[in-house]
């Protein structure tokens, strides 16, 4: 138990370190934008007709704390994010970023996690079956689907679905809500409306994740099946499904759980682009808006940080889960070979 706690603490510390590194990268990116918040704010005032001077800018910088050194500002940003969950204000929109994001980030995260979950729900049984079957047709077609999933980026799939649905159904199936629910409060009707539309982004995002997961599961199962302990189990008279689930599947599970974080990473990659095509109104679209149009680095930085933080969280959870289900990992951690 003590050892497990030690393991969890080490992992938590590493996750925290990663988050700090990421926050430094993100913050540096935010700072690299030419012109700081004070200048932009006053430039906006200038367009409204009130003249501004260098002294005004300096006063504004002091008010916003921009005259402090870089590392101090990073420290206070990180402090606010970690302790209060506050991302500060967006200096283009002059709105609080937390208000701006609202439930949009949670919607995105929900869509991505659902896509990931569905991907593995399909990939694990299909991958195991395909690894244990000798049917050339099944394996060939699965291989083809997997490769297509790799080669056809999700945005092309989204475009093709839009093309087909526009031509066939006359509705491009875009957006996350129908018009009457777009700005309504959450209610059962709104949830229903959301679900009736959210399946499309989930499907599109899950598409290549499924292809990747299928490849991984199949390769792992093939590797494990060739090992001696499977032969030994077979010699003891185990066969069929009992054998598969009892031995190789359990061994293959570890690396699969381990790869969840990177799969989520891959899904996040596709999010802004799919959001653009399907005109979704969630964090991916907001990120795109912030970067491509308004050049709002505070908002963009907050979103990238949140995305990365959820990946780090998933990695941490899978590490712990892995230690719980796999005694070998627990032992190796105790041995000090972290």
């Amino acid at each position: 138990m003590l050892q497990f706690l030690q393991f969890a603490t080490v992992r938590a510390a590493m996750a925290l370190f990663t988050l700090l590194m990421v926050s430094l990268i993100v913050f540096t990116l935010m700072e690299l934008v030419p012109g700081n918040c004070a200048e932009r704010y006053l430039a906006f005032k200038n367009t409204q007709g009130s003249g501004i001077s260098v002294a005004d800018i300096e006063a504004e910088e002091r008010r916003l704390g921009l005259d402090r050194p870089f590392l101090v500002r990073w420290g206070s940003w990180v402090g606010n994010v970690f302790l209060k969950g506050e991302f500060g204000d967006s200096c283009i929109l002059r709105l609080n970023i937390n208000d701006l994001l609202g439930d949009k980030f949670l919607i995105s995260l929900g869509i991505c996690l659902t896509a990931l979950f569905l991907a593995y729900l399909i990939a694990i049984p299909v991958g195991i079956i395909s690894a244990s079957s000798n049917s050339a047709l099944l394996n060939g077609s699965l291989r083809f689907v997997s490769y297509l999933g790799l080669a056809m980026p999700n945005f092309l799939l989204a475009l093709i679905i839009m093309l087909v649905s526009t031509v066939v159904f006359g509705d491009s199936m875009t957006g996350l809500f129908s018009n009457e629910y777009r700005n309504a409060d959450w209610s059962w009707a709104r949830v229903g409306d959301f679900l009736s539309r959210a399946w499309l982004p989930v499907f599109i995002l899950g598409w290549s994740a499924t292809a990747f997961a299928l490849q991984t599961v199949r390769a792992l199962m093939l590797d494990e099946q060739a090992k001696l302990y499977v032969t030994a189990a077979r010699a003891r008279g185990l066969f069929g499904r009992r054998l598969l689930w009892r031995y190789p599947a359990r061994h293959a599970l570890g690396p699969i759980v381990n790869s969840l974080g990177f799969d989520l990473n891959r899904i996040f990659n596709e999010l802004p682009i799919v959001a653009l095509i399907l005109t979704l109104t969630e964090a991916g679209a907001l990120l795109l808006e912030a970067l491509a149009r308004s050049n709002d680095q505070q908002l963009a930085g907050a979103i990238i940080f949140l995305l990365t933080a959820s990946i780090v969280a998933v990695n941490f959870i899978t590490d712990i889960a892995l230690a719980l289900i796999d005694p070998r990992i627990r032992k190796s951690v105790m041995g000090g070979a972290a």
Partner: protein
Amino acid sequence: MSQIDPTKPNLAETTGPTVSVVETEDAVARRAKEAYFTATQRQLIWARFKKNRTAMVAATILVALILMGLFAPFLSPYDPTVAGRDKDYLNGAPQIPKFCDHNGCSARPFIYGFKTERSPVNLRLVTTVDTEDRRYVQFFVTGDDYKLFGFIPGSLHLFGVDEGYIHLFGTDDTGKDIFSRTLHAIYTSLAVGTLGVLISFVLALIIGGVAGYFGGVTDGIIQMVTDAIRTIPIIPLFMAIAAFIPDTWSSEMRFFFISIIIGFINWPTLARRVRTHLLVERNQEYVLASQLCGAPAGHIIRRHLLPSFTSYIIVDLVISFPYIVLSETALSFIGLGLKDPVNSLGVMLQNTTSADVLLNYQWYFIPVFFFIALVLAFVFVGDGLRDAADPYAGQKK
């Protein structure tokens, strides 16, 4: 996978199809074995690769596509930029060359001319095909000037028509020929991919080399930083960096900058491979021997360690190539990558999400098939190479 069996080389290949001297079976087998044992690493990989039919088909397609990209200016009938536009045929449908119609057949393929009128209903410009007006396809015609590979000037094009324009894949909203643009876009993708791969390759070698060779604390720190970078989703990070590009930059500068950042973000995977391999190799005796001779670390890494797994590095580069191409496409598609005068798939697809295009101008999507083919070909060739480079591949079931 089961076809590859290094212990039984193909006898016909090693002895030739017509063996005049009658050899005993033993001698043939011995010769084959000798050829196998004395073969270089490259020959072995090639022999295994050749037996993989899927990979060979993919390699053929890949070579064809690369040639198409390289010779795009010659193969495409028109300049892919606004300079080569056909202002009378905007959003024009693809014109497919025919040999026969109701007026009889001709040995030379032809396309029909067209008339443009305003529709009396909604006043939109409507193009009607005039089946009486034949335009014959000519080969090796002189047309728009171009520079092959960027420096060989020329104006000869593989095909064209005697009057007007020919648009195999139709035209876009400014009258640019989609066929020409597709070919040039393949070239752009290959160029971005090559540059990106080269940059990430150099970075991966340096960082992975240092981490793997020195190990210990250096390795630990580098790994922690690499892991942190790997957790950030790549495309949002790309977007954040690409957003810095000022609008005033020329399209060439944009192109280089995009390639560089794509290269800069893709290195961690390869760096990890290099590191893992070096960690194993650095304990070998030949490294110790070299160290005892007083060779500096850089020399050992370059001359002794890296050549021991060049083939794996090449395979990794081929495998990472399609992902770089796709990153560029995605980035350009959302408007943060390459911009208009440069042709790339992403740029070409930028405006296709509008209902107008989806309903009326579906030929905008033709280039997509070329890109799926390009990426698939790369993936299959990469996989084939990986299997071929693995000396144990044939022994597993």
